[in-house]
C-alpha cells in the first residue's frame, strides 16, 4: 500500500522510521535466501505492535500468519513488494551463533515445524512460539529423568489449564523419583519407551508436529520434550477450574432430574453418555474459530438419525469461518436458515434429559465447548412450547399444563391488540357497565389509548430487562411487582387508565409462562405488531396479523423440516403435538425427521397388561 503524502513528509522530517527499522533488524539478519522468512517475521512483529505504518494489508497478512492458513511462501510473496523501500535502510549486523543460524531456517508456521532431537532447539522453538518470556501463563519446567545417565527434559504446560496434581504425581514424581535402578532404556525409541514403561498417564500421545503439540498444550495438556528424542510426549492433564454440574437456571422442573450442562464440553458429553448407554451414540468433533479453536461436538444416534441430516449439520458447522464463537447462541445464528425471522429455528436447552429425549427421537444435538447449552436441530414450533415437566407429570396434569400454556400463548400475543380493537373500534362488544367504567377512567387521560398501551408495554419490557441486570433476589421481584406499582402510580396520576394496567399485567404474566426463552421474545415482539395492526384496522387488523404470522410460520423451515410440521403438512406423528398422549402409546417416531428406525415401542408396551390373565382369556 502506498504511503500517503503526509506520512512520507513526517518520516522525512522526523526520521521515525529509521529508528524503528533499525531496532527491528537486531534479531535477525537479512539474507537473500531467507528473505521471505525475515520479512515475514518483520511484518509479524510489526503487525503485533504497530500495524498502522504499513496499513491494512500488513495486518491482514499477520492475521493470516497467526491463523496458519496461508502458506509461508504466499506471505513472503505479498510482502516482497512492500518491503522494498525498507531494504535500503538496513544496517550490518554481527554474525549469528549456530543456534541462531538454525533458527533462521524456521518457517514460522508451527505446522511445518517438527520436534528436533536437540533439546535447546526445542526450547527456542517453544520460546518463540509462545512468545516467552513475555507470556507468563506458560510454564517451562526443566527436570532430569532419573535414568542412568539422567536424561535432560523439560515440560511445557499452561498454568491454570493443567492440573497441578496430575503433573506433580503422574509426571514429575514418576519420572524424577519413582524410576527403578535397573531399567534398560531403548534409546532408539525413547519416546515410546517412556510412554509405555515410565509414564503412568492414562492418555499419552507421541507427537512430532508442533501444530498438534501446541493445540494439545493449549487445551491443558502437558508436553514433555526429552533430550535425544525427536518426538514429544503429550499427557492429558486437563484440570482447570470449572463450575460443577449444577441445577438448571431457566428450565426448572419439579419431578425430574436437576442437572444442567456446564461450560466443559467433556462433562456435558459425559452427562449425555450417562443417560444414553448405547454404543451407537456418536460424538463427532469439529473445531470452530480461527483464533479460539473451540471444539464443537455433534452428537447423534447412528442407527436412528437420518444420515442426510447429520451430513447437513456437519456441513454447516464445518464451513463456519470466524474468529470467535463465544456461546451456543452464536453458533445458532451461524447455522440457522433464516436469521432475520422472528422465531428461532434451533432449540437451545440446558437440560441433558431433554437433549437425550430429542436424540432418541432422531434429532441431532450440537454442544459448543464453553457454552452451557445444547442446540437441537431440526425443530418444530411445538417442540419449542413443550417442557420436560409435561412428560414427567401424569397425563391429566401434563395436559392441563399444556392447555394452560396454549391459552397463555394466545393471551400473550392477542390481548393488547384485542383490547385496542375493542375499545377503539368495536365498543359494542364490551358489557355496558364495563365500557362506561373504561370511558370514565379514560376521560381524565390526555393520551389516546394506543399511546397509553405502547407506553405501558414498553415500560414493562424495560422493567423486565432491568430485572435481569439487578442481582439476586431483588431482580425477580422487581419484574412484575414493580410494573404494577408503576402502573398504579401512573393511574393515580391520571396518565393511564387502570384497566390498561390489568391488560398489560395479564399479558406479561402470560408471557412468563412460555418455556423457551427465544420464542418468548418472538411472542413479545409479535404482540406489538398485533397492537399496531389492531390500532389501524380493528379486528380486521388482528385477522390480518394472524394471517401474516401464520404465513411466516408455515413457510419457515428448520434444516429442511417445515416449522409447523405435524400440523402444517399433516404428517403422522406421535400423540404429542399440543396435548400429550399416554407414554405407552408413543409407538412410532415422528415422520418429519425420516429416521432410520421408525418403531419406538411395540403395540402394547406395558408387559404387565399384555401378559395379564384377562387378556389371555380373550
Amino acid at each position, binding site marked *: 500500500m502506498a504511503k500517503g503524502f503526509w506520512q512520507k513528509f513526517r518520516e522525512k522530517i522526523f526520521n521515525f522510521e529509521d529508528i524503528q527499522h533499525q531496532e527491528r533488524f537486531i534479531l535477525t539478519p537479512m539474507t537473500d535466501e531467507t528473505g521471505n522468512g525475515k520479512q515475514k517475521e518483520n511484518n509479524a512483529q510489526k503487525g503485533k505492535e504497530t500495524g498502522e505504518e504499513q496499513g491494512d494489508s500488513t495486518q491482514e497478512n499477520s492475521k493470516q500468519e497467526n491463523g496458519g492458513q496461508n502458506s509461508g511462501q504466499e506471505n513472503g510473496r505479498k510482502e516482497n513488494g512492500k518491503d522494498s523501500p525498507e531494504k535500503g535502510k538496513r544496517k550490518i549486523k554481527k554474525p549469528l551463533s549456530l543456534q541462531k543460524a538454525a533458527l533462521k531456517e524456521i518457517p514460522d508456521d508451527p505446522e511445518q515445524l517438527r520436534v528436533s532431537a536437540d533439546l535447546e532447539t526445542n526450547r527456542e522453538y517453544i520460546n518463540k512460539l509462545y512468545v516467552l518470556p513475555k507470556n507468563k501463563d506458560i510454564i517451562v519446567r526443566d527436570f532430569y529423568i532419573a535414568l542412568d545417565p539422567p536424561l535432560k527434559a523439560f515440560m511445557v504446560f499452561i498454568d491454570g489449564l493443567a492440573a497441578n496434581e496430575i503433573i506433580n504425581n503422574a509426571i514429575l514424581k514418576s519420572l524424577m523419583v519413582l524410576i527403578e535402578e535397573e531399567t534398560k532404556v531403548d534409546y532408539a525409541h525413547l519416546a515410546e519407551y517412556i510412554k509405555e514403561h515410565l509414564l503412568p498417564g492414562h492418555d499419552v500421545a507421541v507427537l512430532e508436529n508442533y501444530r498438534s503439540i501446541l493445540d494439545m498444550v493449549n487445551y491443558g495438556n502437558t508436553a514433555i520434550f526429552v533430550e535425544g528424542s525427536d518426538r514429544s510426549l503429550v499427557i492429558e492433564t486437563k484440570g482447570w477450574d470449572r463450575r460443577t454440574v449444577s441445577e438448571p437456571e431457566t428450565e426448572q422442573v419439579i419431578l425430574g432430574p436437576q442437572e444442567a450442562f456446564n461450560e466443559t464440553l467433556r462433562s456435558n458429553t459425559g452427562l449425555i453418555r450417562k443417560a444414553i448407554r448405547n454404543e451407537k451414540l456418536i460424538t463427532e468433533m469439529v473445531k470452530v474459530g480461527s483464533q479460539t479453536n473451540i471444539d464443537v461436538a455433534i452428537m447423534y444416534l447412528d442407527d436412528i438419525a437420518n444420515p442426510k441430516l447429520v451430513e447437513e449439520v456437519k456441513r454447516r458447522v464445518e464451513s463456519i469461518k470466524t474468529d470467535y464463537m463465544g456461546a451456543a447462541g452464536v453458533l445458532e445464528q451461524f447455522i440457522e436458515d*433464516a436469521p*432475520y*425471522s422472528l422465531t428461532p429455528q434451533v432449540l437451545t436447552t440446558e437440560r441433558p434429559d431433554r437433549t437425550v429425549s430429542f436424540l432418541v427421537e432422531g434429532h441431532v444435538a450440537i454442544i459448543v465447548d464453553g457454552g452451557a447449552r445444547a442446540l437441537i436441530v431440526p425443530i418444530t414450533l411445538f417442540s419449542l412450547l413443550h417442557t420436560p415437566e409435561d412428560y414427567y407429570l401424569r397425563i391429566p396434569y401434563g395436559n392441563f399444563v399444556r392447555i394452560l400454556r396454549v391459552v397463555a400463548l394466545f393471551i400473550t400475543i392477542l390481548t393488547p391488540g384485542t383490547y385496542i380493537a375493542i*375499545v*377503539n*373500534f368495536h*365498543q*359494542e362488544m364490551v358489557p*355496558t*357497565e364495563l*365500557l*362506561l*367504567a*373504561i*370511558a*370514565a*377512567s*379514560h*376521560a*381524565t387521560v390526555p393520551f*389516546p*389509548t394506543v399511546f397509553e398501551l405502547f407506553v405501558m408495554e414498553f415500560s414493562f419490557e424495560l422493567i423486565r430487562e432491568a430485572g435481569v441486570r439487578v442481582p439476586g433476589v431483588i431482580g425477580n421481584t422487581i419484574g412484575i411487582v414493580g410494573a404494577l406499582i408503576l402502573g398504579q402510580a401512573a393511574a*393515580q396520576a391520571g396518565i393511564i387508565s*387502570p384497566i390498561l394496567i390489568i391488560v398489560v399485567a395479564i399479558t406479561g404474566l402470560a408471557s412468563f409462562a412460555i418455556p423457551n426463552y427465544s420464542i418468548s421474545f418472538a411472542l413479545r415482539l409479535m404482540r406489538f405488531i398485533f397492537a*399496531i395492526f389492531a*390500532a*389501524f*384496522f*380493528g379486528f380486521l387488523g388482528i385477522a390480518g396479523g394472524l394471517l*401474516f404470522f401464520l404465513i*411466516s410460520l408455515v413457510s*419457515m423451515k428448520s434444516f429442511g423440516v417445515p416449522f409447523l410440521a405435524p400440523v402444517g403438512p399433516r404428517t403422522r406423528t406421535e400423540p404429542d403435538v399440543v396435548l400429550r398422549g399416554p407414554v405407552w402409546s408413543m409407538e412410532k417416531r415422528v415422520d418429519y425427521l425420516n429416521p432410520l428406525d421408525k418403531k419406538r415401542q411395540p403395540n402394547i408396551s406395558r408387559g404387565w397388561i399384555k401378559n395379564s390373565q384377562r387378556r389371555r382369556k380373550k
Partner: protein
Amino acid sequence: MRREVILLVWISFCFLLLPGCWGSMETDQLGYVLVIGLDKGEENIIKVTFQLAIPEPIEGRQAEKGTEVVSVEAPSIFAAQELIDTFVSKRSTIIHNKAIVVSEDIAREGLSKYINPLVRSSDLRRTNYLLVTQGKAHDFIQENVNLIFERYPSRQLDIFMTSTYMTGLIPNADVHKFYEALNSPGRQPIAALVGVEKKKEETQKKEQQGEEDKEQQGDQDKKQQDRQNKEQEGEQQAQDKKKETKSEKEKVEEAMAYVPGEIPREGGNKIEIIGTAVFKDDRLVGFLNGKETRYYQMVTGGFGRGNFTFPDPDPVEGGSNIINLEIMKGRSPEIKVDPDQEKINVRLFLEGEILSIQSGENYEQGTLKKQLEDYVSNHITQEVMRLIRKTQDEYRSDIFGFGEFTRIDLLTWQDWVDYEWLRKYPRYEVSVETVFKVRRSGIMIRTAPIHRGGEGGVRNE
C-alpha cells in the same frame, strides 16, 4: 423473508402518513344511548327521547345521576341523533341501546314506518326490547332516571325482562319477534307494556286542587270551594264503599290483572313493567293485563313459572281462604289447527307446587288433591278460552301464532300465503284443555289441624 419485512415496514409507514385511523373512536368520545323513546311531535313529526349514560369515574367524585335524558323533535330517528350532537358534547352512538319505548299514540298509528330504520341500521340490534307505554314515552324515560338498585337502565331492563320466565307477567318481546310476526302470514305482533306508577290519591287531589286554585285565583268564592270539597268527600266515600263491596273472591281474581299504573303499591322504581300490547298488523289495538299475559304465555309455550292464588275450592268456614300455587310449564303445549274444519284445539300441560293452604285441608293427597287439580284446570281452561275469544272478537288478531301450525298441511309457500289465515282467524272454533298435576307441596306433606280454645279472651276493639 427480508423482503417481506421491508415491504411490511414500508407499507405500515405509508399508513402512518395517512390522516388518522378512520373509524377509531376513543371510549370517552362517545355518548352511549341506552334507551330510545318515540312520541308524536308537536313541532316536527316525531319527538325522540334519548337516555344517555354518564360514565362513572372510578375514584373520587361520584356523579349524581347515572343518565341524562335528552329530547329532540325531528323527522326521523337518525336525524334526531344528529341533532343531539349540537347540544350534547359527545358523539352519540346507539350501539349500546337496550330498549325502544314507543308511545301509545304512535303505536296506534302504525309502527311499520318506524320499524324499518330500526331493522336496517347496523348499529341498532334486533335484540332490543320493544316497549309500548300508555302515555308519553318521554315521561316514562324521565321517571326512570333515578334508579335505586343500579346505575344504568340497561342492566335494570335486562333484569326486568327476564321476569318473563320467572313470573310470566310480561311477554318475551323484542324487535326481532315483532318484525318476524309483522312479516308472517301466520301471526300478529305484540310488545311489552310499560308505564309509570299510579299517582297517589292525595297527590292526585292536590294536583286537582292546585289546578283549580289556579283557575280560581281571582275568584275567592268560598262557597264554591266548600261545595267542591264536599263533592270530593262524597267521591271518596263512594270509592271506599266500592272497595268494601268487593268481595274477597273478587280481590283474589283481580290480583295480577293490572296494567301499568294500576298496581297498588308503594316504593321501588317509578316505572312498572307488566302486561302486553296487542297489535293488529302494525297498529296497536289493545292491552292485555298481567293475568291475561300469563295465559297468553301458556298458549305460546313461553310460560316458565308463575305464582297463582285461587280461592279455596272447598270453602269451609265462610270461604275467605286461598290456596297459593306455583304453576310451571310441564311440556310445550300441543296445538292442533284444522284448516278444513276451522277448529283449533289447544292442550296445555302444567305442573304445580303447593305453597300455601290457608284452610288447613289436606290438598296434598288423595281425593282432595284431585279436586284441587280439577278446580285449577277448569279455572285455567276458562280463562284461556276467554282470552282467546277476546283476541278473536275484540281485537281480531292472532297474537298466539296459531297460523304457524297450518304450515304443516300445506305444500308450498304460495298456498300458505293464499290461505289468508289472518282474515279467517276470528271464525275459528277454539277448544282448550288443561292438564294440571300437583307435583310437590313444599316441605310439608300434610297440615296438622289447629286446636281452638273456645269463645272469649280475644279483645275486639
